[in-house]
């Protein structure tokens, strides 16, 4: 849509002009250019580059200090900054992705069980569903979950990747190579 400069000039004058008590200087001339198409892929790239294929783990937390059930799926997840730190304090969860004895990814998350109820003081909410999006760089066998230094659970994720690779044989994740546990046999 082409917008006339005259209309825009009037619109500019309609906007209040004081900031920090200082009178703003108004333009003596305004011009609006006609619209130019932009390539959608280029435009969206900065957003899409925030995401990658990964593992989403759901864990049932019970009594604040135990995990009794879990399930996992493959989905797009946010990329995590490389300098994500695991503090190891008793208020943080840590999630270690394990593969053949190596640890390609570890991330931490807040424990939210201590709550401040206004006017009533602390409340402990100890049962819930914890969701962990993990941008694992490659298929992993296990996610080791800790709360502080306490080992809560090992979630076995190998089958999730095997199932995914059955349907997505051309994925780099699922291709041939030294990754025998996740290699498709076709």
């Amino acid at each position, binding site marked *: *849509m082409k*917008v006339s400069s005259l209309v*825009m000039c009037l*619109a*500019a004058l*309609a*906007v*209040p*002009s*004081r*900031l*920090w008590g*200082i009178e*703003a*200087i108004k*333009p*003596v*001339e*305004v*011009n*609006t*250019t*006609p*619209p130019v198409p*932009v390539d*959608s892929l280029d435009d969206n790239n*900065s*957003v*899409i580059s925030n*995401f990658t294929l990964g593992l*989403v783990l759901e864990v049932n937390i019970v009594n604040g200090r135990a995990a009794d059930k879990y399930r996992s799926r493959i*989905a*797009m997840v*946010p990329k*995590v*900054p490389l*300098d*994500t*730190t695991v*503090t*190891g304090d*008793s*208020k943080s969860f840590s999630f270690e992705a394990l593969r053949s004895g190596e640890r390609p990814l570890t*991330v*931490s998350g*807040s424990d*939210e069980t201590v*709550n*401040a*109820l*206004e006017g009533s003081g*602390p*409340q402990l*909410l100890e*049962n*819930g*569903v*914890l*969701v*962990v999006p993990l941008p694992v760089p490659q298929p992993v066998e296990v996610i080791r979950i800790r709360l502080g230094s306490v080992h809560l659970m090992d979630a076995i994720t190998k089958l999730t990747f095997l199932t995914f690779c059955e349907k997505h044989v051309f994925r780099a994740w699922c291709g041939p190579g030294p990754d025998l546990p996740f290699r498709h046999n076709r």
Partner: protein
Amino acid sequence: MRSAIKLILITLVTASGSRLLASDSISLDHRPLVALRGDVVHIKVSGIFQETVDSLTIHIIVGRMIDCGEIKSDYKGIGIPCRTNVVTFEHECKFGGVAPPGSLMECSYSEDFTTRTEGWDALVSYWASASRSTGNETSQDALSSSEVSFAQGNPDAPQAEPIAWPVWWYRRAPLSDKVDLGFFRDSDYGEGIGYELFRQDLEVILEKVLDAAAPFNYPMAIGHNYFNLWMIMRGGELEQQCKRSFVKSIDPILAILDGRVIVHQDSTPDCSSIAQSGAGSVRGSAGDAAWILMHEMGHFLYGQGDEYACDGSFDTALCENVFKKRGDCEIQAQPKGALCEALVCNGVEGAWHVHNEGKIIMRDRGLDSDWSPLNRQCVSLRNAGRFWPGSFFRSLSK
């Protein structure tokens, strides 16, 4: 549109990467923050420069807002907006040498952007550049600001794949570099007019916290450009007091949020997790809801406890302000030349905090309360740590 506009100091960078004077500044602003189809949105750029600037240009990019999954099939349902049918245009304000160095210059543009997207939701981005004079010549360098994005359209419409509605989004920056706050409409607002009431409450809250003048909004005032602000119309529920839940379909949105705020209407007492990436509730209909938001942010984003009660996190590994032991409090108080004070709960000394004479955000209600030195220290530590929300609770109960 409010005349008192927040100040956002953005370091200007020339196209070649060299910096302008430190005292140069540009502020970006748009109103309304939550823009509906049919609204005329006002974009305003204000600048103060130590050298003569001849023109300010607002660069605008508009397209139809869609889920990024529609751009690339692998990304289906990530809940973050992309756009299609994108166009860009510029609105230039020329000052003709009438603005002396140090003066406040202003350039504005107003439009209903959904007219460019045939009534569909629009995703709008804008940034500013300035051209300045060097002697008798005008520099061709583009002195540019950051880019801010927002949506305009019909946020009430149900979506098969829910999309987070950007209110103030630094779209060009990695999500991991920003603190992402999501504001959820609680179902107690109801349907129909309830959507409008929620948007009105949110608009008032965000206008106040983005306004730089008051001390109660210290985290926003020092680092407004740390924050992305999102609105989510469905999927968050404050069930009772601290019990909160979110529906599974918005997991992709929850995954990018550092803070999840359920805005509700009724008189349920507000409650938040004491965490560095957590969730809480804010009574949006309260007259001082902006203060409530900042107080609750003290809990769920900066790990602060109430300083009128005894509900600190009681874990010295976090940056705290409420201590179980007097000795832990004194470690914090002594370098500041302050004293520790007992917090009395049910007639018993239950915890300790650093004494403050003035009104402080975690104790005293009101827009004139401030963040104590220790509160501010915890804000700085979190901001410096690039704490990433590695996990989140979809539901939590006793």
